[in-house]
């Protein structure tokens, strides 16, 4: 792993694009994800999240542009695959095989494998190891998937909508497991986790990438995002354009206009606007081109 590439992040994509037939699932994707954090990959359904993760695993090949992951180009070769852990959408597994057999499978398909840790993790959560995984609950299966991915001791963990199908309690348990694993790895593990709603992931993430309409809308640390975005509330007649900020989303009511803006200059003359600090979910929804009510929790 070259030192120079590592400086540019664990994951670095340049003009990355993927076309299926005549449909561009992802285009002009430019992201730099720093090492050692937990990154939320957020976007509406069909925004290209799954495609991006598959390109990063090397499961799919890009149509244009390039991705550099841990200093390598993603490919289906063992030296690259040893570095990453991946949990596909809906956690596909061999339904008749037990969790213990899956761990055994992993032990035989990976040079580097920490099966003891996985067993400890799953028994701690009360996941039965001797039952076919087809008979486990969605939450338990997701935990088995996570345990398998972590047992590889990956440097990068890619999780595709891991909590989308889980009930609220199972979500919390899954995210807690993940946060513990990230803490245990002490900066050696980078996690990228996709979701169509940030609220799922907010509490464990420190970096956010927003994909919408196949493009990167935002790629930044969550703290920095919060610092540089504001909601401006003012009369309908007010002039919205201002070099001090960029309007991300404007919504107009009968007599009032709400703007969500990215500040180019923190010191700006706010009159006639009333300024409020948005939460991260409002910012994400603005970038996804949705209002909070439209994109509300399902």
């Amino acid at each position: 792993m070259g030192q120079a590439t590592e400086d540019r992040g664990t994951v670095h994509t340049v003009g990355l694009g993927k076309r299926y037939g005549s449909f561009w699932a992802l285009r002009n994707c430019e992201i730099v994800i720093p090492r050692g954090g937990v990154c939320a990959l957020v976007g509406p359904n069909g925004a290209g999240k799954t495609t991006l993760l598959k390109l990063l695993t090397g499961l799919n090949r890009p149509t244009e542009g390039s991705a550099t992951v841990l200093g390598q180009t993603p490919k289906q070769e063992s030296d690259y695959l040893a570095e990453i852990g991946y949990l596909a959408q809906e956690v596909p597994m061999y339904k008749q095989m037990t969790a213990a057999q899956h761990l055994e499978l992993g032990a035989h398909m990976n040079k580097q494998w920490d099966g003891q840790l996985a067993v400890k993790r799953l028994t701690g959560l009360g996941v039965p190891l001797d039952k076919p995984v087809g008979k486990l609950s969605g939450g338990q299966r997701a935990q088995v998937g996570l345990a398998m991915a972590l047992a590889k001791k990956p440097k990068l963990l890619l999780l595709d909508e891991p909590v989308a199908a889980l009930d609220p309690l199972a979500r919390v348990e899954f995210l807690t497991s993940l946060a513990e694993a990230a803490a245990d790895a002490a900066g050696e593990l980078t996690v990228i986790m996709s979701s169509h709603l940030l609220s799922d992931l907010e509490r464990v993430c420190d970096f956010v990438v927003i994909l919408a309409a196949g493009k990167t809308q935002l790629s930044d640390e969550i703290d920095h995002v919060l610092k540089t975005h504001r909601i401006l509330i003012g009369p309908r007649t007010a002039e919205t354009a201002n070099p001090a900020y960029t309007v991300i989303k404007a919504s107009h009511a009968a007599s009032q206009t709400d703007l969500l803006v990215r500040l180019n200059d923190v010191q700006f003359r706010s009159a006639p606007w009333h300024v409020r600090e948005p939460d991260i979910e409002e910012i994400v929804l603005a970038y996804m081109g949705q209002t909070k009510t439209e994109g509300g929790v399902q």
Partner: protein
Amino acid sequence: MNWAMWQQHKKQWMIFGGLIAAFAVFAVPTGMHFWHVYQQALAGCAAAADCDQLADQLFRHGHDANIFDITKFAVLFMPALLGIFFGLALVGREYNDGTNLLAWTQGVSRRRWLSVKIGWTVAITALGAGIIAALSTWWWRAGNALYLSKFQPLDFAVQGILPVALTIFAVVAAIALGAWLKRTLLALGILVVILLVVQISVPTYLRPHYAAPRVYTEQLVVQGNKNRDHRPDQAPVPAHTGAIWVNYSAVVDSDGTALNWVNPPEECSYTIEEASTRIHNEERSGGTPDVYIDREGGPAVHFRCLKEKGYHWEVRYQSADRYWKFQIIESVLYLALSVPFVAATYWLVLRRDA
């Protein structure tokens, strides 16, 4: 990866092993029984100096005949069944269930994963098919000796080494179809069509041409009737030639043109009534009547007249000593046909997006 392969498929393989064992449990005692019955019948007819009709009497009816036919068809369909149960699901099911995404993100390259999967599946199905083919060949020896039929298409496909090559072909074709179309009804349908087309067209259009047929000619029988040894309307069989395979037989003229039974030479043709009258008259005058044959709705043809014009029987056949040569040629052919399917599977799995 080998261990993973075992873990994933052991149930399937053990069932297969069980079925082979069950076939052996059935085949060994019945095979010994048939052989014993045949030996006894042979000894019996030899004592009576009347073995000519043994083939028409033994195992032709009832229980024994059913066991013969059912077993033959079971072995005939074995390659297709192995293709369906081992081949279609091998990669197709992984695509269906999304487990390919799990397998391809472990520390094993996709190429190695596929090679191990194909390698073990082909090895195990070929081994199983080999055991079944060997048992089938041994089991069938009474029939082979009795009917001299092992070169006939239905027998040829269930004995020797051909079942193994057919199995390999069916399995790799199924793997490729599964990789292409997932584990779908369409893949199953195409597999069945491919196997049917191949199993019908190869024996019909290709097998007769692996070697130029030997030619046997015989004079027409012009006198007598109903004598078994000289049935004048049936193509003769070259004497003492073992299990031959007849590709062609016809009454031909001196140029080799086959007789047109509907429109034979005018001077040798009679209406059925005329022929009956002539036979009747010849019998009444105390002689052996001439042969008149009507076929395919044509007139009665006077064989003595045909013979005088140079007509004779021509039989083209593959001799018994070519049996193994043909088995090997056809097995190699099926292995060659398997190669593009294996290549297509690699192309589909390695080139296509997950």
